[in-house]
C-alpha cells in the first residue's frame, strides 16, 4: 500500500513531520475532466466510495470519500448532490482543524486547512478558499502534497497560472517517483489551461512513459493482480493513484495530440486508455471524433453514451459532430429507438434519443423523453438543462406554402401557441410537399395512404384515404394542416389531403 502511515493519533510535538503525503491520500485532480472530456460511467466508483464512508470513520477516509463523491456527482451533472458532498468535506475539514489545534498537532491542522480550502474552492468561494490555502502554506510550505492541493484548488477556481506556480512547488519538493509523476501531471494540466502547451506536452510524455516503464513494474503487477480500474480524484494508496494517473495522463496527451492534428498518436493514447478500461467515455468520444466513417463514429459515440449518459460535454459534442453530418443511417439511431422500447432500451440510448429529438427541433418529443428520465434522475443537472432547452419556445409561426422541415417541426412544437388569427389562417392555407408514404395499398387503380413523413416529419391522415391512380411511396402531396396527433410514440401532423401527384 502506498503511504501506509495513516494519521497517527494525537501528536503533541510538531516533529516528526506529518504531511498530506502521510495522510495516505493523494489529490490527483482538482476535479474530473468534465470540462474538457466526459467522464466514465461512475456507478461503481460511487458505490465504492459509499462503502468506504460506511466502513471507515477516519478523517482521511471520510474526506477522500466526500471529495470523490462530489467529483463523481459533478461528472454526472448532479451538481446539487456534488455541492452537498463538497459541503460535507468542508465540515469534516473544519472540524479536523479545530481538533488538531486542540491536540497541538500542527501538521494535522495544516492538512485539514489545506483540504478545507480545496472544498471551499470546489464550492466556488474564492476568498475563503484563498485564505485557507494561504493559512496552510504558512505551516506546510515544505509539503509537496499541500502545494498539490493548492494547485488543484486554483484550477477549480479558474486560475491556472496560480495553479501552475503551486504545482511547480510540488514538483520541486516531491521525492518518490510516483509523487513526482502526480505533480508533473498537475503541472501539465495547469499549463495546458494556461495555454502553455509545449511544456505541458513534454511533461505529459514524461509522465506517461514513466508510468509505463519498468520503473513502475511492481505497481503494474499489483494493478494487474488486483484488476484495478477505478478512477478517483483523491486516491488512497499507490495502486489507485497509479491507475488514475495513467488514465488521466494518457487522456490529456491524447487530447493534446488530437488538438494539433496528430490523429495517429492521439488514437494510440486513447486506445491505451481503453486497454485499461474499456468503458472510458473520454477515450471513446476521442476515438469517435477521429473515426474514419460515420458508422464507426456513431458506434463509438453510442458506447461513450453508455459509459456516461449525462456528460454535457459529450452531449454538446454529439450534437455538433454527429447530428448535422448524418441525415440518415447511423446518426438516426436515436430516432429509431421506438423499435427498441422496453427493457432493451438503455439509458445511453434514451439520452441519445433525447439529444437527437432536441437537436432536430422535436421539442415536444424531447420533453416527453426527458420527463421520463427526470422521474428516475430528479437531481440530474444535465437533464434539467436539456429540459429547459426543450421548453424554450419561439413565437409560433405558420409554415410557407412549400414548407421546410424546420418550419414543420416548429409548427409541431408550437401548435398550441398559435393565436386565433393564426389558426384561422392555417385552416385556410394549403401546402405542398414531397411526402414519403408508409403502407401504401393499391387496389382497383386506387392507392390507399394513411401516414408517412414529410422531410422526416411524421404525419398522418384522420383515416385511410384512397387516391385515384397508382402511386409510389414518394409523391407530391397537397394538404391542409388540421392539428397534432400521434404516430407510433412520436408527435405527428394531422393532415387533410387535397390531392396527390406522382
Amino acid at each position, binding site marked *: 500500500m502506498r503511504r501506509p502511515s495513516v494519521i497517527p493519533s494525537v501528536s503533541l510535538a510538531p*516533529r516528526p513531520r506529518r504531511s498530506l503525503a502521510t495522510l495516505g491520500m493523494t489529490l490527483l485532480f482538482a476535479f474530473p475532466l468534465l470540462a474538457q472530456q466526459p467522464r466514465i460511467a461512475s456507478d461503481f466508483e460511487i458505490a465504492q466510495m459509499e462503502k468506504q464512508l460506511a466502513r471507515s470513520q477516519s478523517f482521511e477516509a471520510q474526506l477522500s470519500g466526500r471529495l470523490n463523491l462530489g467529483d463523481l456527482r459533478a461528472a454526472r451533472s448532479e451538481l446539487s448532490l456534488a455541492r452537498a458532498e463538497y459541503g460535507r468535506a468542508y465540515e469534516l475539514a*473544519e472540524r479536523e482543524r479545530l481538533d488538531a*489545534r486542540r491536540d497541538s498537532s500542527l501538521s494535522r491542522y495544516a492538512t485539514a486547512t489545506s483540504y478545507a480550502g480545496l472544498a471551499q474552492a470546489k464550492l466556488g468561494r474564492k476568498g475563503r478558499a484563498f485564505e485557507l490555502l494561504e493559512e496552510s502554506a504558512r*505551516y506546510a510550505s515544505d509539503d509537496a502534497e499541500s502545494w498539490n492541493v493548492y494547485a488543484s484548488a486554483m484550477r477549480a477556481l479558474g486560475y491556472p497560472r496560480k495553479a501552475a506556480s503551486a504545482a511547480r512547488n510540488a514538483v520541486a519538493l516531491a521525492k518518490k517517483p510516483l509523487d513526482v509523476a502526480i505533480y508533473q501531471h498537475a503541472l501539465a494540466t495547469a499549463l495546458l489551461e494556461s495555454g502553455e502547451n509545449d511544456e505541458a506536452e513534454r511533461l505529459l510524455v514524461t509522465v506517461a512513459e514513466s508510468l509505463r516503464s519498468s520503473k513502475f513494474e511492481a505497481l503494474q503487477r499489483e494493478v494487474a493482480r488486483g484488476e484495478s480500474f477505478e478512477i478517483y480524484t483523491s486516491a488512497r494508496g499507490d495502486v489507485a493513484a497509479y491507475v488514475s494517473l495513467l488514465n488521466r495522463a494518457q487522456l490529456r496527451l491524447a487530447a493534446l495530440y488530437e488538438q494539433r492534428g496528430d490523429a495517429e498518436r492521439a488514437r494510440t493514447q486513447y486506445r491505451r486508455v481503453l486497454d485499461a478500461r474499456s468503458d472510458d467515455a473520454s477515450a471513446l468520444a476521442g476515438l469517435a471524433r477521429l473515426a474514419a466513417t460515420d458508422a464507426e463514429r456513431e458506434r463509438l459515440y453510442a458506447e461513450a453514451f453508455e459509459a456516461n449518459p449525462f456528460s454535457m460535454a459529450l452531449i454538446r459534442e454529439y450534437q455538433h459532430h454527429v447530428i448535422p453530418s448524418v441525415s440518415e443511417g447511423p446518426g438516426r439511431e436515436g430516432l429509431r429507438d421506438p423499435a427498441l422500447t422496453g427493457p432493451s432500451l438503455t439509458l445511453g440510448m434514451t439520452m441519445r434519443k433525447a439529444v437527437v429529438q432536441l437537436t432536430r427541433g422535436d421539442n415536444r418529443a424531447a420533453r416527453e423523453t426527458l420527463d421520463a428520465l427526470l422521474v428516475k434522475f430528479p437531481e440530474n443537472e444535465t437533464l434539467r438543462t436539456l429540459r429547459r432547452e426543450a421548453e424554450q419556445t419561439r413565437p409560433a409561426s405558420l409554415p410557407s406554402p412549400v414548407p421546410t422541415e424546420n418550419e414543420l417541426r416548429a409548427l409541431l412544437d408550437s401548435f398550441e401557441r398559435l393565436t386565433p388569427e393564426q389558426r384561422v389562417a392555417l385552416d385556410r392555407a394549403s401546402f405542398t410537399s414531397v411526402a414519403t408514404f408508409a403502407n401504401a395499398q393499391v387496389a382497383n387503380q386506387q392507392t390507399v395512404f394513411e401516414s408517412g413523413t414529410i422531410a422526416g416529419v411524421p404525419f398522418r391522415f384522420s383515416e385511410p384515404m384512397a387516391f385515384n391512380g397508382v402511386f409510389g411511396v414518394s409523391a407530391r402531396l397537397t394538404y391542409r394542416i388540421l392539428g397534432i396527433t400521434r404516430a407510433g410514440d412520436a408527435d405527428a401532423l394531422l393532415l387533410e389531403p387535397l390531392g396527390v401527384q406522382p
Partner: protein
Amino acid sequence: MKRLLLLLALAAPSFAQIVSATSHGAVVAHDGRIHLDRGWTADGVQNATAIVVGPDRVAVLDALNNEAVIADLTTGKTTRVRTAETPIAGAFVGRDLYILARDARLVERIDGPRFRVDPDPAFLREAGGRLYVYSRATGVIEEIGTKRRVTVAPFASDFEISGSTAYLAFPREARIRMVDLRTMKPRGAVTVGAVPVDLAFAGGGTALTARILAVADPSAKRVWLTETTQSTAQAIARGFLRGFLGLGLFGSRSSQFPTGVDRVAVRDKLWVAYDSSSGTLYRFTKSKSSVIAKGIAPQGFALTAGGVVYWKDGTLVAQERAR
C-alpha cells in the same frame, strides 16, 4: 449536532475583510469597497487579500484577480492598476509602490522596473528605504535592486525586520533565525517553543536593552517573550550578556488560548494574539488574556494609536486601549 454547528460557526469567520491602521485612521477593505473610518468610501477590488499602508496612501491588493487599487488617504481618490500574477504583498518606499507578485516571481514597481526573485517569494519587507524579499523554497533573502542576497533556510513562516536585523520563524525546527542585513550574513539562531509561527517586536532594542520578540506558538498554546541576542559589543557595553529567555505566558495544560494562537501583534503596550482556527482575537499581558472578539477574519483587525479595531458582522468595531 448542536455542538458541531456551533463550532463551525466559530470556525468560519467572515472573509475578504481586511483592516489596517493608517496615519488617517483605520482603513477597511470589504465587499468590493475601501472605507476610511469616519471618512471616505471608494470602489475597491473584488477579493481584498492585503492592504499596503504608506504615509499618505494605501494600496488594496487582490491576489486572485491580479489587481491593486491605490487610494489617497486624504481624498479617497483611487487609481486601479493591473499587477503581475498573485500580488500578495507590497511596500511604499517614498512615492513608489512596490508589489510582490508571488506566482510571477517578481517584485514590480508600479510604473517602473521589475525585479526577478527566487521561487515562492512569500514576504516583502522594507527597512531603511530598502526592500527585502524572503523566498520560502530556497530560503534566500534578496535585497531588491542590488545583487545582495543571503541564504538562510527554507520554509520560514514569518519574516520581520527591526533595525538592521531580520528575524525568521521556522515552525518545523522550532527556531528563530536572525540575519544581519548590513553584512547580509546569518547572525545565529535560537530555539523557541515547539512551533513558532509568527513574531512581533514587543519592546527593547535600545542601547541598553535587547530586542524582545513576542512569538506565537500554537502548539504550545503560548506566546513566548524572548530577548534577542545582542552583538558582543552591545553586550559588553551593557556590562553583561543576556541570552534567550523563554517566557511562556500560559502553560498548555491551563492555556487561556484553548486552541492556541498563531498570530501576534504589538503596538506600544497593547498586545493582541489571534487564533486562525477559530477566528478568536485575544488581548493579553504577561499575566492574563481576555477574548476581544470571535469570528474575526485573519486580517480583520489592526492596532491603532487608540486601541484595537476589528471588522465584525459588517461593522468596524473599535476597542479603546484603556479598557
